[in-house]
């Protein structure tokens, strides 16, 4: 399972999530590129009141900027003590279990030195 960024076929601008119209040139065709690798935590939170469908007491989230592309994305973070500027590795996993369907997305974890 992979997650993707969307590169504008005209000007090369990278997007995540997908937009229908390129934010730079207005073009409407894109090519998917795998989005993975290392990133840095810009900010994070640990949430104790989760929405319907999460059978757990808490879950942590972060905004992470990917090192290679510079794209910032929202992620789940699998780390008890995250911190700003922490280096993380991106994985793809189940972010939500719904009836008859699993949703996949970014789950980052600390880079083990």
């Amino acid at each position: 399972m992979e997650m993707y960024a969307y590169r504008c076929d005209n000007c090369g601008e990278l997007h995540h999530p997908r937009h229908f119209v390129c934010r730079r040139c207005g073009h409407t065709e894109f090519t998917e590129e795998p989005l993975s690798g290392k990133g840095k935590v810009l900010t994070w939170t640990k949430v104790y009141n989760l929405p319907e469908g999460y059978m757990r007491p808490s879950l942590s989230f972060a905004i992470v900027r990917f090192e290679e592309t510079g794209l910032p994305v929202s992620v789940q973070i699998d780390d008890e003590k995250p911190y700003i500027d922490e280096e993380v590795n991106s994985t793809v996993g189940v972010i939500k279990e719904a009836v008859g369907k699993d949703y996949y997305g970014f789950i980052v974890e600390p880079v083990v030195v």
Partner: protein
Amino acid sequence: MREVGIVGVGHTKFGRWSGSYMDMASTAAVEALQDAGINLAAGEAGIDQLFLASMGAGQVNKISGAASALVDTLNLRPAMAETIENGPASGASAVKIAYMAIASGLADTVLVVGAEQMRILSGWESTDFVSTMLHPEAEYPYGLTLPAAAGMFTRLHMEKYGTSEKDLAIVAVKNHENAMHNPVAHIHLVPDLHAITDDEDANVINPYVAEPLRVYATCPMSDGAAALVLTAMDTERKFAHEPVRIAGVGQATDTHVVAERSDPLDLFAVRESARIAYEMAGMGPEDIDVAELHDAFQILEIAESEEVGFFPRGEGSKAAREGKTRVDGEMPINTSGGLKAKGHPVGATGVSQVVEIVRQLRGEATGRQVKDAKTGLTTNFGGFGNNVVSIILTTTERG
């Protein structure tokens, strides 16, 4: 363009509404119509248009086309009627659209009702309902919530500007104190600042919701409705109150996904909506006597007070600490109790904010009245800042 004024206000007690959605909306509507001195007899009300603001009438209360039901139960037929859904900014959007309807000449007198009944849901379900305003692919399926977005925003604000958990609690206590004087507020108690911050049991009384946000840095889930009667100021029709004039309306949008903003601390749509409203009114932040800002989380009152120009960037917390935003301070904010203590029935909030400013400008805000208030600002914040509406109201100048 025609000038537009507000001549009637209505407001249910926010909190838990045990009756039906339509009764709640109707209660606020009838209070506003009666406040304006409008005859409710069939065919006599002279309401050309109804706008009903709600985020969840369809999704939560299973009433689609809710404005059609409301216009009928109020017997305002054949008035035009529409439901306005714009997340938590639905209320101010409805006021804006009512302004447009009158300014364009399509209508002379418009009833705006904001109504939300969320507490029929469990905590799980309501958290999910509110979260549906996040991005459908990049945020919502992750389990992200509005408190999560606010928690991440707060952490950055703390890191960059030194805002503390205590600063958030100071804003909360101030708003709870204000709500004690507002009979329609959801919560009538004032938390003890020491107990919720420095006490050894603070973690028990005031636990984390989304670190570093605690319970007393977030608003409650509320039911409630608020209503306004808006009218053209160039007609001969007389009402029970002098109109409070809508001097400026501004709205702006920002990226749907918070992570996509080049600076996630930048609330561009707040700043831009206020700028447009100031420009239309021919005013600036220095002209505002009282403001209702969208403090769904206490950090937002601080950040919005900077973005709308009351205080320099990074100095909102200091202003709150110094008491500048209290009722007797130099820039009173959330005299109603704000979303924190008055409550936040999402689609009703933008209408409720305007009701409070009208009461302030009429001199009816007993116990929380800002002295000589002539001009007020409301900022109604949709999504996590992706759609924001600001409105400026003034007393009617008499020649």
